[in-house]
């Protein structure tokens, strides 16, 4: 087990270096980091020269990248054109986005797994068809459509939930969390259904039935636990989709979180904030997946013993 954890940690290093290198090269070497710094006009040459000197862009690429990594390790994501540190901007908005994301994760796992189990044990029946068809629709309708329609129907017409969630309290975040979770919920339900259906055909289930175990025990104890393992991997990958979805959801419901900050920075052409935020989110995504991988090794001993 210890060897597995260490191997995963070591495998992580080239990925982090590669990802930050790609981000750095595309933004600072290939792209033009002064875009938008001077509004809609092109920047004057004097400003560009000073900017390039300040950001070490006049040095060789590899030195630039090492200096950038050095800053990144110290938590310096750059300074936006209001003169604020991007890290501070993110830190002040972090709790709201974290709450929204956690609520969405709870919604998608609870509803997704329940729906998937119901469909999986009653394959070909009404519940199964209902789950398969409705999840297909949830996956196909883009999140910004679901968000706008939910806002119109449940916020404006029915008045069940607040139309916007400016303060970001738990009650205000209920509807946004459901919207954010909608597509992932459908994926989890389908994954759970497929896993369960496959595991129910396994030999150990036949043995359990032959021993005379009740159906509830066969499914609940033997099959369910094995079927849950791939769902946990999915949740790790899904954190990336939730981050993307949070940008859209926070924009629609005007939630003052990281996603909305990123959206507004894009609109204002605040390059330092856009790049800093995305770098931070990608790093968090990589670490969450590392954690999931390690957890996976504990849950399924076959993985860590190869």
């Amino acid at each position, binding site marked *: 087990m210890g060897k597995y954890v260490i191997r995963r940690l070591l*495998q992580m290093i*080239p*990925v982090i270096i*590669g*990802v930050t290198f*790609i*981000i750095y090269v*595309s*933004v600072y070497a*290939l*792209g033009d980091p002064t*875009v938008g710094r001077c509004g809609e006009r092109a920047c004057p040459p004097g400003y560009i020269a000073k900017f390039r000197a300040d950001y070490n862009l006049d040095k060789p690429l590899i030195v630039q990248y090492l200096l950038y990594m050095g800053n990144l390790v110290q938590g310096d994501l750059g300074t936006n054109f209001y003169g604020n540190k991007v890290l501070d901007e993110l830190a002040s908005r972090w709790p709201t986005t974290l709450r929204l994301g956690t609520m969405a994760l709870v919604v998608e796992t609870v509803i997704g797994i329940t729906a998937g189990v119901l469909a999986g044990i009653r*394959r*070909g029946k009404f519940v199964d068809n209902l789950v398969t068809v409705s999840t*297909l*629709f949830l*996956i*196909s*309708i*883009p*999140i*910004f*459509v679901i968000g*706008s*329609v939910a*806002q*119109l129907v449940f916020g*404006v017409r029915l008045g069940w939930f607040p*139309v*916007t969630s400016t303060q970001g309290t738990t009650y205000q975040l209920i509807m946004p969390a459901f919207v954010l979770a909608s597509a992932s919920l459908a994926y989890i339900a389908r994954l759970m259904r497929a896993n369960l*259906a*496959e595991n*129910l*055909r396994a030999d150990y289930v036949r043995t359990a039935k032959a021993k005379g175990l009740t159906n509830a025990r066969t499914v609940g104890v033997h099959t369910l636990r094995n079927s849950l393992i791939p769902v946990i991997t999915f949740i790790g990958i899904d954190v*990336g*989709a939730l*981050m*993307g*979805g949070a*940008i*859209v959801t926070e*924009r*629609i419901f005007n939630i003052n979180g990281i996603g909305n900050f*990123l*959206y507004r920075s*894009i*609109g204002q052409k605040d*390059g330092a904030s*856009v*790049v800093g935020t*995305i770098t931070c*989110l*990608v790093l968090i*995504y*990589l670490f969450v*997946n590392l954690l999931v991988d390690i957890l996976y090794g504990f849950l399924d001993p076959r993985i860590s013993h190869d």
Partner: protein
Amino acid sequence: MTDTTRDSGLDTTSVVPVTIDPTGGPESRLSAPAKGERARSLGSDAWQELRHRPMFWISAALIVFFVLMAAFPQLFTSTDPYFADLSKAREAPSADAWFGRDSQGYDVYARTIYGARASILVGILATLFTLVFGSVVGIISGYGGGWVDSVSSRIGEIFLGIPLLLGGILFIYTFPPPLDEPLVVSVMKIAFVLGILGWPSIARLMRSSVLQVKPNDYVQAARALGATPSRIISSHILPNSLASVIVVSTINLGAYISVEATLSFLGIGLQPPAISWGIQISEASSIGLIRAAPYMLLFPSAFLSATVLAFIMMGDVVRDALDPRMR
């Protein structure tokens, strides 16, 4: 269903395909087991299964419909999508403008029809890119092995580490399309970005199926008979792995269309005066407008969702048909 297949003890090739489609008819049901006597190829087996699925025909019809719309929008409307009548702004749907008019007085129906082109082009180009590039990398690393395999797998891991939407925002923000850029160029740029972020999943799939097929006796035999690597790949490895790659690509195509629309919705990606569903939805989705003119949002959203649905449903149905265990 699982119980019946297990208890009947029949092998899968002779099981009559389960069908909910009444149009399948008694005749084809009777002929199915008879054909099963001969060994059927996986492809024709899957086709027998697909023919009886209404989901297959619905998604195929939708895909043909939307691709026609993207290729020849003139077939569906004779209204100029660039003609704006400000005095009729936000008019409700009528015989004159079926889907109503938007804030600029544009005909929503005409713009929805013309918007298909950008979305579907992005989806198809991005999928083609991932398919070609991912397959080549996957085959080379699976067939070659050694350091080529390690290097390309590591590079793939790096690109998989960047979530699609975040990467899309980053790259397209860094290389914004100039205002006077022709639509095709912007579309190709976006497709390229999505392809760059998406190829590793196809490469992984291809690599694992190469590794699965390579040690088989018939591949060893072909090699012993002097077949070149390119012949082994084209006649033994590709046919075995193509099915799963095509299924994943079809589902991805729907996802790429969705991401392109999300990028336009966030204000990057395609820019007006280009016409696309994402731009239309973005313009229609402020809360005031949703209340005043919901049809501005409804129609492009419905078309976008139906397109994504069609591709995902097609991938789903084909996967079920190719996987005999799911019957």
